[in-house]
């Protein structure tokens, strides 16, 4: 601000706004400062921690983002030439500049997907903030338009999934211009530009004899030697944009009807991404960007140049409620890798055969989550599974439950579904499915809470059925269908409760929540829960007259789960060389398993029973060795049962490896343990994500 003698208010570049004027309050502030004692604070009544943390010290660049702003507003930036149109007066340079903008926009989009705000990423592009002014530049305009429309579609998809994971920031647009009139036609506009440049590409590649016919096509840029390279580079970027937009819109079609088409577009996207990567060679050979080999990989453009027309500080006022910190945009290379992964994950969703079996859905979701998909992919999975209160938008939940509970087909039409608790159960199932699609950290917390709901559900159903149908007979007489259905449903509810409890426990490994001291009790708990799960599944299947073969497979499946878990606790005990009975450990036990204990999962398990059972577990090492051998044997046997199932076979192979390595380690410790005090045992998760392999080394 100018200081002209201090007699009148200095001129300000910032307009004062409606009904207000700027005035100088320096002397007022000065007197206020001398009036307050050290440590005195003037604050409003509701000044709490949140207010304190949101407060900022004006003119501290770490907090006051206005200080680092170059321009006060978008309009000021444009007036000062921050986003020229055309980008460069030289046609060739203009094309290269537009390519830089496209690349940086892609990097911004990937950064946004990864969890940053739209305002600081995609909408840091001035061209996007004032899209209509680019309409004279067909290439830039159409590209930006489709980008904006795709972002809008993605925001809409994630908003609809509405699980409010920690990534809330993703959908916040804060008044940014995400929608525009006529955006439905943006793809055809892009297609038209694509056609033009494709013609230019054909023209420059045509042999001289044909060139006379195509002579009236104006080239993309002025240097004929560079025409082919630039046309190719631009066309693959346009096509990627087009196909990606189609992927998102196809996948939104209800009941997975657009999946087959989406897969075709995904394949096209991946192929265009390859093309984009290859174009970097040409682009770099023509650009004097001054970056050396290593540095260029960190840049947000293929050329390594800074793109024109981006300013993330312009939107800082749109990033409520606290001032934004500067963020780092993903590099161009990492952005492409992100989109490749996203497309692969979406492809897997699109290839899901919409298994009508509930177990199939659970397995699919569990396997899918192992890929560690990001928010956009997870949201699309959730949108597929839960639509209009039905599975895949078409299977009524009660029918799904009946099938999963091994009830005959006719059961799904039974009146029992009008029972209010049955409909609540349906809601619980859908909510649980949605939770299973979220990120692991959030998922585990929500699963822990929803276990209570499953337990309460069981109790309510039990009470309701008892009231409606009287005491459930121990030997089911098929004349009373309602009784049969209610029995099956109760067992099914228990089975799902244990499944969720198991998932809760296993997720702790992925999230690294357990320290080695905790393994003993974690595995014990897993063992106990798995046994219960196997028991319920078995009960469900044996109370039915289905074909024996299917029954046999399922039984083995879950008993295998129980068997493999059973092998573990003894070894952990031995190798740790101590059993925790101290009172101190009770605290850890309760902390870790509080949520499960509250839901009585499983019934009456307590620290005391844990310590008792581990007390009894002081058995000979030979027995322990045999458990691993048994696990290997069972795994081998099961391979034939699951010959058509690659996921199960992979799991069995992993179990075999864990068992084999642990058997060897155990052998070593037994033979050398007492003789060689320098032997140390470590646990690694090298072969399996939640069953540790013991490694014996000399320290």
């Amino acid at each position, binding site marked *: 601000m100018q200081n002209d003698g201090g007699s009148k208010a200095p001129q300000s570049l910032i307009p004062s706004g409606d009904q207000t004027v700027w005035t100088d309050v320096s002397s007022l502030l000065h007197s206020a400062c001398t009036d307050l004692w050290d440590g005195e604070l003037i604050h409003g009544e509701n000044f709490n921690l949140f207010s*304190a943390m949101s407060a900022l010290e004006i003119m501290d660049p*770490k907090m006051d983002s206005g200080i680092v702003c170059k321009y006060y507003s978008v309009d000021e930036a444009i007036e000062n030439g921050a986003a020229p149109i055309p980008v460069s007066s030289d046609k060739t340079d203009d094309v290269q500049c537009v390519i830089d903008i496209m690349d940086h926009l892609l990097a911004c989009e990937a950064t946004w997907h990864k969890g940053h705000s739209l305002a600081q990423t995609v909408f840091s592009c001035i061209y996007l903030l004032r899209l209509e002014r680019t309409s004279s530049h067909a290439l830039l305009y159409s590209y930006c338009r489709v980008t904006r429309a795709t972002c809008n579609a993605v925001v809409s998809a994630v908003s609809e999934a509405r699980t409010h994971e920690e990534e809330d920031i993703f959908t916040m647009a804060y008044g940014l211009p995400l929608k525009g009139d006529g955006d439905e036609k943006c793809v055809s506009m892009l297609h038209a530009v694509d056609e033009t440049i494709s013609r230019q590409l054909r023209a420059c590649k045509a042999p001289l004899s044909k060139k006379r016919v195509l002579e009236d096509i104006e080239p993309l840029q002025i240097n004929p030697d560079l025409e082919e390279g630039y046309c190719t580079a631009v066309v693959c970027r346009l096509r990627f944009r087009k196909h990606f937009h189609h992927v998102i819109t196809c996948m939104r079609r209800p009941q997975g009807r657009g999946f087959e088409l989406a897969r075709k577009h995904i394949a096209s996207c991946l192929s265009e991404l390859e093309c984009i990567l290859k174009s970097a060679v040409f682009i770099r050979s023509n650009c004097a960007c001054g970056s050396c080999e290593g540095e260029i990989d960190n840049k947000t453009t293929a050329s390594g140049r800074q793109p024109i027309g981006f300013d993330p500080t312009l939107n800082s006022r749109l990033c409520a409620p606290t001032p934004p910190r500067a963020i780092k945009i993903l590099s161009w290379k990492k952005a492409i890798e992100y989109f490749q992964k996203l497309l692969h994950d979406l492809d897997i969703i699109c290839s899901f055969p919409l298994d009508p079996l509930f177990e199939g859905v659970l397995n699919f979701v569990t396997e899918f989550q192992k890929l560690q998909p990001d928010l956009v992919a997870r949201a699309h999975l959730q949108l597929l599974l839960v639509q209009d209160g039905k599975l895949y938008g078409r299977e009524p939940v009660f029918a799904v439950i009946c099938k999963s509970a091994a009830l005959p087909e006719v059961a799904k039409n039974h009146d029992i579904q009008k029972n209010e608790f049955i409909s609540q159960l349906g809601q619980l199932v859908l909510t649980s499915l949605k939770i299973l699609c979220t990120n692991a950290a959030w998922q585990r917390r929500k699963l822990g809470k929803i276990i209570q709901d499953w337990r309460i559900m069981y109790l309510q159903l039990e009470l309701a059925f008892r009231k409606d149908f009287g005491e459930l007979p121990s030997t089911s007489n098929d004349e009373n269908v309602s009784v049969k259905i209610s029995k099956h449903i109760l067992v099914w509810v228990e089975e799902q409760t244990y499944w969720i409890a198991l998932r809760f426990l296993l997720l702790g490994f992925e999230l690294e*929540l*357990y320290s080695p001291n905790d393994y003993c009790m974690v595995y014990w708990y897993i063992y106990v829960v798995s*046994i219960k799960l196997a028991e319920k599944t078995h009960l469900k299947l044996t109370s039915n007259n289905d074909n024996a073969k299917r029954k046999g497979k399922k039984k083995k499946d879950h008993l295998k789960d129980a068997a493999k878990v059973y092998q573990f606790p003894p070894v952990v005990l031995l190798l740790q060389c101590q059993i925790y009975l101290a009172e101190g450990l*009770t605290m850890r036990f309760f902390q870790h398993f509080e949520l499960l204990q509250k839901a009585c999962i499983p019934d009456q398990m307590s620290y*005391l029973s844990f310590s008792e059972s581990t007390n009894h577990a002081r058995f000979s090492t030979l027995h322990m060795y045999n458990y691993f051998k048994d696990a290997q044997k069972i795994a081998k046997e099961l391979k034939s049962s699951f010959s058509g199932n690659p996921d199960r076979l992979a799991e069995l192979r992993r179990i075999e490896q864990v068992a084999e390595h642990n058997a060897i380690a155990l052998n070593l410790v037994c033979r050398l343990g007492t003789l060689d005090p320098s032997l140390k045992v470590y646990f690694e998760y090298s072969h399996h994500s939640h069953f540790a392999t013991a490694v014996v080394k000399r320290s």
Partner: protein
Amino acid sequence: MDEERVKEGEEECEIEYVSYGGEHHLPLIMNLVDQELSEPYSIFTYRYFVYLWPNLSFLAFHKGKCIGTVVCKMGEHRNTFRGYIAMLVVLKPYRGKGIATELVTRSIKVMMESGCEEVTLEAEVTNKGALALYGRLGFIRAKRLFRYYLNGVDAFRLKLLFPRPELSSGHLIVENEDMPHEESQPELSSGHLIVENEDMPHEESQRH
């Protein structure tokens, strides 16, 4: 909030530990924290903690120089009276000597005496030093918080439960028979999988 990276060691070295004594300590704390952390806190944030809970903040001095500090709060949170460790810093050259552990321990002691049922804090999943320090003090990793920090790093919510009278072995005792034992490899038929239990006693002793 942010935790500073700390290492542990054994030897003591003439360190003087002082409880927060007033305004004259505030700039010392602020300088330490500002210096070591990239995330800025406004002065209001500091004042919020040290004004309301001066007995929970401690400073460590070496030859008159402030080389470490811990800043905490406590209060009612969803029916639990809990302590919260907001900031912990020790200057780099003084790390590995147990100073951070001592600062934290003093604060936790006051929390316990004041009736706290538990203590909690957040730490970056990559902050091995802090995780080791608190692990040794008995904190468990209660939750993982996805992308908690602005740089995209996850955090662990660490929690320490104080011993409570109702958790002695008197309650929640159940007889468990036939827990599958090791002498005979259990045949995994349904008969051996069912554990016989008595009725669940003491509903009221369920913790929240």
